[in-house]
Each structure stands twice: as structure tokens, then as C-alpha cells.
């Protein structure tokens, strides 16, 4: 899908690139702003027909197990509800994913909606990243309860978020509504400072 308007990342005004380091060293927490991540809301009852059609378009079937994500080829599907997923794509690939899903799901009771601009994505990693989230999130983030490949909708510092654990290192992607991105980034920075914070490029 061609760019038809100039886009601005939700955290561009913080000039994070100017603070970014190449090597986080022994920082306890590493944060970045992931700009222009493609996001597609997918709705439909997960019948065999629906899952086959969506799976054909994505290369993998959307997960039916609550609070889990699935993915292949750089595209992920985050479970949001029994008939709802957030499809996450690398920047610029949301258009082809939308076209593929719509083509395969044609005629079914399903909805495919580009919501890329709705949320900002903050990358949070490092050995103390879990502690930072635990300061403001009611989820049980202990490794026995929440691990790589898990995702959940909840609140972080009272902002609505989707937390997706991408690695057992641990590393997380935090999806936050765009107008809360500045607030949440600043809250996370404040929470992470005591562990040593490094900012890297997204």
C-alpha cells in the first residue's frame, strides 16, 4: 500500500534517536520506540473455515488459546478475544496482509481493519524489564505464568495496554493507545531509571 500521507511516530517528538546507544552495555532495562508497526484488527468466529482462510493468508492460523500469540515470517497474530486478533506486521507490510486476508475471507462473516495508527509500540527488554512492568501492571508476569509467546490485554500505569512477551530474556512489546504513548514512555523511563536504562533505535 503506497504512503499517501506523511506519517509521524507517536514518540518522534521525544527525539529518542539522539539518545540511542549502539551498545546497551550492562543496562538493566533497554527501551525503544518501534515506529510504524503495521496493525490489523481481525474479527470472525474461529470456525475451521475461518481459520483455514486466515491461515492461508497469514501462513499460520490465528491462535485460539487465550492470551497467546502465533507468528511466522515476521507477522504475528495476538489473541484479543474469542473472535478477535491483532495482526502485527513489519512496517509497510500491513497493506499486503489486509489484501490477502480480505481475498481469502471473502464471503465469510469477518472483518479486517487497518488499525496501524491506533497504537504505539514500545519495546522493553533487559534483565530487569519484568520488574519495570510489575511496578504498574496487575498481570502475573512470573515466568511460570507468562512467558515468550504469551500476550495479554491489561493496564500499565492505568493506561490500557497489550503486553506481548517476545523472548524469555525477557523482552516485551507494549502496545499502547497512541495518545497515551508519551505518558507511558515517560512513566516507563521513570520506573526503569533505578535499574540503569539504555535507549536503542527501534
Amino acid at each position, binding site marked *: 500500500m503506497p504512503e499517501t500521507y506523511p506519517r509521524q511516530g507517536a514518540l518522534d517528538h521525544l527525539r529518542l534517536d539522539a539518545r540511542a546507544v549502539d551498545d546497551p552495555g550492562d543496562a538493566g532495562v533497554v527501551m525503544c520506540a518501534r515506529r510504524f508497526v503495521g496493525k490489523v484488527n481481525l474479527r470472525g468466529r474461529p470456525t475451521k473455515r475461518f481459520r483455514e482462510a486466515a491461515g492461508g493468508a497469514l501462513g499460520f492460523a490465528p491462535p485460539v488459546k*487465550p492470551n497467546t500469540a502465533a507468528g511466522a515470517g515476521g507477522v504475528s497474530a495476538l489473541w484479543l*478475544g474469542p473472535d478477535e486478533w491483532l495482526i502485527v506486521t513489519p512496517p509497510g507490510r500491513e497493506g499486503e496482509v489486509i489484501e490477502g486476508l480480505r481475498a481469502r475471507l471473502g464471503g465469510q462473516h469477518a472483518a479486517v481493519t487497518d488499525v496501524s495508527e491506533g497504537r504505539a509500540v514500545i519495546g522493553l527488554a533487559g534483565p530487569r524489564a519484568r520488574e519495570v512492568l510489575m511496578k504498574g501492571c*496487575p498481570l502475573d508476569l512470573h515466568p511460570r505464568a507468562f512467558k515468550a509467546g504469551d500476550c495479554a490485554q491489561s493496564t500499565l500505569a492505568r493506561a490500557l495496554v497489550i503486553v506481548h512477551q517476545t523472548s524469555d530474556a525477557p523482552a516485551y512489546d507494549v502496545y499502547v493507545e497512541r495518545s497515551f504513548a508519551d505518558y507511558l514512555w515517560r512513566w516507563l523511563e521513570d520506573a526503569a531509571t533505578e535499574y540503569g536504562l539504555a535507549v536503542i533505535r527501534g
Partner: protein
Amino acid sequence: MLEITCPWCGPRDETEFDYGGEAHIDRPKDPDKLTDEAWAEYLFMRKNPKGPHLERWMHACGCRRWFNVRRDTFTHEITAVYRMGEKPPGDGA
């Protein structure tokens, strides 16, 4: 703080949920045919028990699904959680 088990997402803190009042109240099929008393009965009158209560909750900060809970209004103990359209387990409230 209650811990409520969303039938989809599992146990979560009460702060993630919205309360929806008494469960299993059917909207009258033809409100125009009701007397004012019958309409008021549907609209306003609730059981308000001290003890087990069947009520609706919505996982507002999570999957955003409505579901039913059986909660003791005196002890706050939750003894059942079941999905919309399902009957309360056992003998109800």
C-alpha cells in the same frame, strides 16, 4: 480487591473489570404492551440479596466480553463464573 476469573482470560484483578448488575433479567419482548408498573419492575426492581448473587461483569481492560459471576454480596466470595447464554451452575443463587 477481588480476583475475578474471566471465562476467557483467566484470573485477573478487579480493576480490569466493569460491573453490570444483576444477571438473567430479560428485556420484555414488547415493552409497549406493558403497564407502567410492569415496566418499572423490569427497569428498576432488583433482588439485592445478602448472600449469593448472580451478576454480570465485563472484562473491560482485557477481552471486553460480558460474562456471569455468582458472588456472595456479604463475603465477596465468588463461587461460580460462567459465560453469557449459559445457565448458572448447580441450583443457581
